[in-house]
């Protein structure tokens, strides 16, 4: 494999990233690569800056030092117009869904499409919103509802539908299953996996959900001590002798999730 193809296969490359709020350093030298077509899970204790890492990759948080490349293009200090072209190629699902409260679910899905393709055929626009909403696993009644009328789980699905509006190649998910019941969470996992297969997505997934990690993540990155201490499949991580990783995956909850995952695959 030569350098050129290797570069094309890396969708996100973070090098030497440093983030700080005042005196408080959150990240100190983060290195992380996300390859094309993989689902990368990001785990870490509360307050280790998982969301901050995502925010620096998508350009909402200006880091103190380091480089961030998405699709091989540097995302720091970009011209607004150029950055917009990159933004059209990713979708972001925020923790609470972050739906626009004055628009219905279907209109929320239409917002990115209208922004980038204002001349699109009206009928097609409505049809796109309809099938995106259905693809995200929402019932048809949810389309004309406002976000305040939806439950937490439905809001997440609607947020996912909006994140998928432009058929992105890259999807950022911030704790997509947090606050969902186990059945809803499992269904959401399946949904993400099936969309990832169908659309060939690369997924950057922040989660605390051990079941999600076992069920759908190709690799897992562990954030601790202000850096990424390890990246790999769960068996690879378990082979490392790091106390936090051991406790995370081999604690009572970790074992239960691993058992459930092995039962499902068996």
């Amino acid at each position, binding site marked *: 494999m030569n350098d050129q193809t290797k570069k094309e296969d890396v969708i996100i490359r973070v090098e030497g990233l440093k983030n700080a709020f005042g005196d408080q350093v959150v990240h100190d030298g983060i290195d992380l690569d996300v390859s094309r077509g993989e689902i990368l899970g990001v785990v870490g204790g509360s307050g280790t800056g998982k969301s901050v890492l995502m925010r620096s990759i998508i350009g909402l948080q200006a880091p103190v030092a380091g480089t961030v490349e998405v699709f091989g293009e540097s995302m720091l200090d970009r011209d607004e117009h150029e950055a917009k072209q990159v933004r059209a190629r990713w979708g972001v699902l925020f923790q609470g869904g972050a739906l626009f409260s004055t628009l219905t679910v279907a209109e929320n899905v239409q917002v990115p499409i209208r922004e980038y393709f204002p001349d699109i055929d009206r009928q097609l626009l409505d049809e796109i919103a309809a099938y995106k909403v*259905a693809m995200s696993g929402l019932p*048809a009644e949810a389309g004309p509802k406002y976000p305040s009328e939806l439950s937490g789980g439905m809001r997440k699905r609607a947020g996912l539908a909006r994140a998928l509006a432009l*058929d992105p190649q890259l999807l950022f998910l911030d704790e997509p299953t947090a606050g969902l019941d186990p059945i809803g969470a499992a269904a959401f996992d399946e949904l993400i996996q099936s969309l990832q297969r169908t659309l060939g997505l690369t997924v950057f997934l922040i989660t605390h959900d051990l079941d999600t990690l076992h069920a759908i993540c190709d690799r897992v990155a562990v954030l601790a001590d202000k850096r990424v201490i390890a990246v790999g499949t769960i068996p690879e991580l378990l082979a490392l002798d790091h106390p936090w990783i051991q406790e995370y995956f081999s604690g009572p909850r970790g074992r239960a999730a691993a058992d459930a995952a092995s039962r499902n695959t068996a």
Partner: protein
Amino acid sequence: MAGMNAPADFQFDQGTLRFTGDLTLARIGPLPERLRALPESPQRIDIGGIGHIDTVGAWLIHRIVREHDVPVDGASEDVAHLLEQVAAADKPLKIRPDAGPGFLRVLDEMGAGTLAAARSLYGLLDFFGATVITFGSLIRHPRRVRINALARQFEVVGVQALAIIGLMSFLIGIVIAQQGAVQLRQFGAEVFAINLIGRITIRELGVLMTAIMVAGRSGSAFAAQLGSMKLAEEIDAMRTIGVSPMEALVLPRVISTVLLMPMLGFYAAMVAMIGGGIFCWIDLDIPPITFVQRIREVVPLTDLWVGLIKAPVFGMIIAISGCFQGMQVKGNAEEVGLRTTASVVQAIFLVIVLDAVFAVFFSSIGWI
């Protein structure tokens, strides 16, 4: 691959729709309109020659398949999978709620608006009653008075408002003096500008302008603070711990505003007179000594009482409506903004209505 990185296109010959190019959202261009204008219905679809395809392209293909029930040739395994997924998601969906016919909707909205206004007034009275009851129980148990919260509100509502209210009143005093002098000069009676300044600021404008400023500054803050606390379930948490939100949140705000309004109103009237006096000194050559002398002659003591009696009532209205609207917040963050606006509008409206009532009342008891 042929057709890679070319805009989406199709040829139609002998019943076969042959697609080429990238069938993606970015590259479909006018394809949907052109497809709708096909001369006859197609017999088969060939997508062997396409480049990239995304769900939008798959949807377009699916739409033709659905309408004409035709086979699709040349789909790779991935594309066939994508077509299946899109077909599975084909469910009719409304984009926005149905809107009834225009006339009915107007009637509907008028009715809903009237009901909402009536309910809001009723709720305000209800809230006023609850505040009075809480105040009564607090008088019986004075140890439960929250001195710290009260002192904090005194600082926020009163002390921190001094600068802005002073500046506003000073400028209003100058404007009244200047306008009065211009008009009265036509009769050679510009010295009566002093009567105008003295009576209007002490009797009316000092308190009224202060009320408007306090409603905008503190009433809105009450609504926003209580509203966001309500959203974050802080108020529910208080109740479950056994702390009464009326006692801990509402009363300190109401008491401080009621007590501070007369002081702020008096202060505003004084500063406005200073502004007017300075204008008289500079423009009309009336020395401050004469100005003060005239004021003492022409402003009856009852004017001061009128202002001081109105002020606490206005303060009560502002604080109650701010706290009431804040406690009404539920649902989403947008509601906080709406309720904050509503609290200011309601407070200023009620203050002006009551001001008119007071004007009639005081003149009928002879305090002219």
